[in-house]
């Protein structure tokens, strides 16, 4: 049964990208097939920020290409990593003395393409450094980085490294600033109701009516415990408690908090979840320095959200709040 407004399933990725760059043509364009770049490129004395990932998660990841954030997003097919060939092509396009920071979400396909493309890039004289994100905590609070997936925590990271690059920081400096944030960001996802793969119609995961799963991955793959649906307040409390524990937050700490709807959960619900989460943080004496509610990285029509909590320092706060960004899905006016 057809449940989506699509045309030929083979054309989904190219058609969605064509629509996106047409809508925001003063900000983004297609640099090549499945490679989204800024409409006005940054001067090449500055480090370029490149990322990669499958489509089907809109507005991620191409929604964050723009002045102050990403220079380039390399897009794979639905839920699939782009091949090393396309990524290598993008790295060649952004070759510069200042270097390229390649932000890779920890998913095996993305990691593999990134490993291959960077090996080839180094041999082709392209300066590139990989930063791997692994903000998901559903594998356990003590799980090694390799076992932790990259979820929507990459998005504030793009903002931070993007702003640092715009400021003219060196590749090593940007990597250090980004890695410092990377170690201090934790994400937890909750899902209720599954979604279908837009190309083959397969149902991804099977949650019974009224059941939720905390720790669900980006493609609906299970990770944590299942339980019956509880109230927004109870869900938010459970989730923020785990994130606070992971980050060892104490009174006086400063954080950034983002609630990312994954597709079928309304902004009404996201607001209610944010309310309780913020209350708990404030009661614990923790100050929220930057926050946002919205659909940033979605999983088709899956219901649920990702809660992204990061302990931030002065550098991160400055890059998140005071530096401008005109990326279509993360606009910040900033301060002069």
């Amino acid at each position, binding site marked *: 049964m057809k449940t989506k407004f699509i045309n030929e399933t083979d054309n989904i990725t190219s058609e969605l990208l064509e629509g996106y760059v047409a809508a925001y043509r003063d900000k983004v364009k297609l640099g090549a097939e499945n490679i989204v770049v800024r409409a006005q490129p940054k001067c090449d004395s500055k480090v370029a920020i490149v990322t990669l990932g499958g489509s089907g998660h809109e507005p991620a990841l191409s929604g964050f290409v723009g002045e102050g954030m990403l220079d380039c997003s390399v897009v794979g097919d639905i839920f699939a990593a782009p091949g090393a060939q396309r990524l290598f092509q993008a790295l060649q396009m952004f070759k510069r003395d200042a270097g390229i920071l390649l932000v890779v979400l920890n998913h095996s396909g993305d990691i*593999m393409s990134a*490993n291959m493309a960077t090996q080839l890039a180094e041999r082709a004289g392209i300066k590139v450094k990989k930063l791997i994100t692994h903000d998901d905590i559903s594998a356990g609070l003590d799980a090694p980085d390799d076992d932790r997936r990259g979820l929507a925590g990459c998005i504030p990271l793009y903002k931070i490294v993007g702003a640092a690059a715009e400021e003219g920081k060196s590749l090593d400096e940007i990597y250090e600033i980004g890695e410092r944030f990377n170690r201090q960001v934790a994400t937890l996802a909750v899902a209720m109701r599954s979604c279908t793969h837009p190309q083959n119609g397969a149902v991804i995961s099977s949650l019974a009516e009224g059941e939720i799963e905390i720790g669900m991955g980006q493609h609906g793959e299970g990770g944590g415990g299942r339980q019956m649906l509880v109230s927004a307040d109870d869900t938010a409390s459970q989730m923020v408690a785990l994130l606070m524990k992971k980050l060892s937050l104490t009174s006086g700490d400063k954080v950034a908090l983002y609630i990312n709807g994954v597709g079928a959960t309304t902004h009404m619900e996201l607001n209610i979840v944010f309310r309780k989460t913020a209350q708990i943080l404030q009661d614990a004496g923790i100050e929220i320095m930057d926050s946002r509610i919205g659909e940033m990285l979605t999983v088709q029509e899956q219901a649920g959200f990702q809660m992204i909590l990061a302990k931030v320092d002065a550098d991160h706060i400055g890059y998140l709040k005071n530096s401008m960004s005109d990326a279509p899905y993360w606009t910040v006016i900033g301060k002069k």
Partner: protein
Amino acid sequence: MENLTIQDFKKMLSAALEQVKQREDEFSKLDAVIGDGDHGTAIVQALTSVVEAAEKGSEFKTMLNDIGFNVMLQTSGSTSTLIGALFLGMSDAAQGDSLTVSQVKEMFKGGLANVQKQTKAQVGDKTMMDALVPAVQAMEACDTEDVRQLFGCAAQAALKGAADTVNMKANFGRARNYGERSIGYTDSGASSWACMFESFANVL
């Protein structure tokens, strides 16, 4: 046979592709036990682009580098990453159009070192490393001036390494989730890599 020439090496690669093609189904079936069942296809695709890139080669360093690039740019997946890494590493450690026994040893040592940068899998984890690592170590230990004998040592060690994976529990990648259920089957990657080394030895 004192030297390994470019022509010998191309013959070895073509022989490996032929053998792997003949056993493609076997490798895929082994992979289906604890993986997604596409290893036969993956290794044939990878070796096809290896052989294709090798055809134009006239010097080891450049040819091995071109092979590495071709594998990685034409195909995707973990098999291609590792085969590509092997050839790029070999390229770093080889030059000229004819290699002595000790130069061949160096070349494979360089290849293994680069593969080890790409995977954390160790001997005993039930992966292709169970064939590759013993093969390169056996070459290193092989006291001979004869290239044919050198690859004989490597093939023997790789075949034994692959056979040993039957009793191993998968300890790496997706297969790890199968735990005890992975025991009793040879690892598909170890088998295909052993098959390559066996073909190298047999064609010389």
